[in-house]
């Protein structure tokens, strides 16, 4: 019963957002094109890099198409975060500043749910489909290569999607947790911007974090702020299934689940603590 209510409310959020987007059609199309262009620019940049080198790091297993699998995973995760959460979390600090949060607190429904999903940015979903295209092409290239062709099993695909959703959950938790701090920090001040700096680190295979500087970074962004598992774990499941260090991959995959649960619980705790300190702006 409760679950059905949430589903219905979510679908109405989705529907209302779509109606709204359709009212501003030109804007919707422009936004879709803009995010597609940004993505193509990114892809072009990496394609350019791979004209200079066949792989990232010797023996790392990240050749061009393996990396493109990684890249499409980044696109999936980012587009899901942008579609469902980014606009809402963006607006969260504004709601705190203007006192608009009042209305969310009055409703007989979970406040975090309403705050996180009230608006859905359908135009960002275009990257999801672009990512799907890139993934299919890359997997095809990998499976028809003469040397060590890739076999993709249904289990791998299922695990891939599960871990991708875990990645979305981790990035979302980080986002809402950082944003909730504006309740304490007050006007126009929030740690939310840090999200963009931190998540930058998730966009590359974890092998690049090696050496004197790399190792501590890798440790921090795996265990303290687990953004490294966001893309790395699902991408490895498809692109690196037969690596000799698969036991490492296995423990990493197990850790990713723990990290997801911990992130969600942690962010919920921060969110609820923050609401206790909410002051509501003047009438």
């Amino acid at each position: 019963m409760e679950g059905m209510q949430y589903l219905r409310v979510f679908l109405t959020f989705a529907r209302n957002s779509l109606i709204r987007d359709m009212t501003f059609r030109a804007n919707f199309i422009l936004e879709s094109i803009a995010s597609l262009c940004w993505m193509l620019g990114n892809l072009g940049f990496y394609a350019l890099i791979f004209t200079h080198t066949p792989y990232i790091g010797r023996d790392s297993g990240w050749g061009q198409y393996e990396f493109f699998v990684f890249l499409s995973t980044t696109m999936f995760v980012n587009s899901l975060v942008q579609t469902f959460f980014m606009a809402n979390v963006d607006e969260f600090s504004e709601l705190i500043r203007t006192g608009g949060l009042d209305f969310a607190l009055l409703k007989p429904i979970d406040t975090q749910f309403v705050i996180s999903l009230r608006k859905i940015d359908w135009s960002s979903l275009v990257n999801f489909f672009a990512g799907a295209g890139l993934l299919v092409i890359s997997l095809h290239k990998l499976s028809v290569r003469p040397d060590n062709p890739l076999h993709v099993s249904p289990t791998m695909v299922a695990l891939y999607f599960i871990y991708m959703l875990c990645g979305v959950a981790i990035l979302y938790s980080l986002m809402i947790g950082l944003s909730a701090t504006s309740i304490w920090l007050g006007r126009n001040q929030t740690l939310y911007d840090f999200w963009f700096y931190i998540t930058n680190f998730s966009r590359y295979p974890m092998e690049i974090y090696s050496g004197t500087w790399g190792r501590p970074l890798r440790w921090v962004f795996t265990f303290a702020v687990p953004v490294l598992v966001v893309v790395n774990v699902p991408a490895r499941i498809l692109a690196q299934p037969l690596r000799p260090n698969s036991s490492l991959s296995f423990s990493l995959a197990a850790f990713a689940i723990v990290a997801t649960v911990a992130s969600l619980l942690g962010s919920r705790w921060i969110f609820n603590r923050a609401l206790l300190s909410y002051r509501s702006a003047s009438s």
Partner: protein
Amino acid sequence: MSIIELCGLSKSYRVYQKQEGLLASLRGLFRREYRDVHAVRGIDLRVEQGEFVAFLGPNGAGKTTTLKLLSGVISPSGGEARVMGHVPWKRENAYRRRFALVMGQKNQLWWDLPAQESFRLHQQIYRIAPEQFARTRDELTGMLGIGNLLRQPVRELSLGERMKMELTAALLHSPDVLFLDEPTIGLDVVAQHKIQQFLKYYQQHRQITILLTSHYMKDVAALCRRVVVIAKGRIEYNGSLNGIIDSFSGHKVVTLQFATDQSSAGLERFGQIVEDQPPRAKLRVERSALTRTLAAILAQYAVEDVVVEDPPLEEVIASLFTQVERDSGAEAQAASGTDSADASTAGVA
């Protein structure tokens, strides 16, 4: 048991005192000065089921803060409150399904969508059965005369129409308790009147409990039998509207109509002259000395007509606010370092 019970309810904030200038701002990065703002200082109040109670008070008196505490939007610094047996700031769904808060200065409807889309969302959030939803919606929009505007984006509605939509949205789930924070602010006379009529009918018809804050005495006079005057976070008066005059006004206004050849010279001995337009004069007379003064005037002047009135309610309330303001100013000086909220003295209009 009362439907709303407040006991020693208080709320204070710490506010960062920002100094003027760049240098002071930089200093503020390292050492900050805070000030405690006591928005609500120990309020005791009981409201019975079916009452329509008005909160009156100058800006910054703590009216809205009290409503926010009762809605559970903010938590108190001290004291207790129960509404329908619930502690508001626990924000239980069972409580949140049974009350509504309407704020004249904030809107909750989706700006770019027709109001009916927001209503549908409310239906799902409050789990209102479809038939009941349609019936309540049609009833409310019919009474408010906005049935034909449901398909228009909210941003294209006038302020009055939008307020009516906000009211409808708030009442869709048929709340038992309704908090109204300045619902008619900024509206023209016609829209104000319409909303008053609606609230009056709705409250009597459904016997719900309503707490209203408003700066318009007309709202209050038309709707509420009981008035709670709040100033500087404390209750200064709790009773009927007319009782305010008895409690707070020490004088009456006497209008004298003199015979044509009678001069009004020397009248100031009897009280403060408010108006002197021969052959008419108005003066304020101490209530306790009224009969004595009247007798003396009638003995000394040739008077054709006498009218004795209470001073206008607005005036009494405005002077009450000013008085409280002055008293607490002195208090604050005695205990320096603490000061109260917004120091505006704007009264009722």
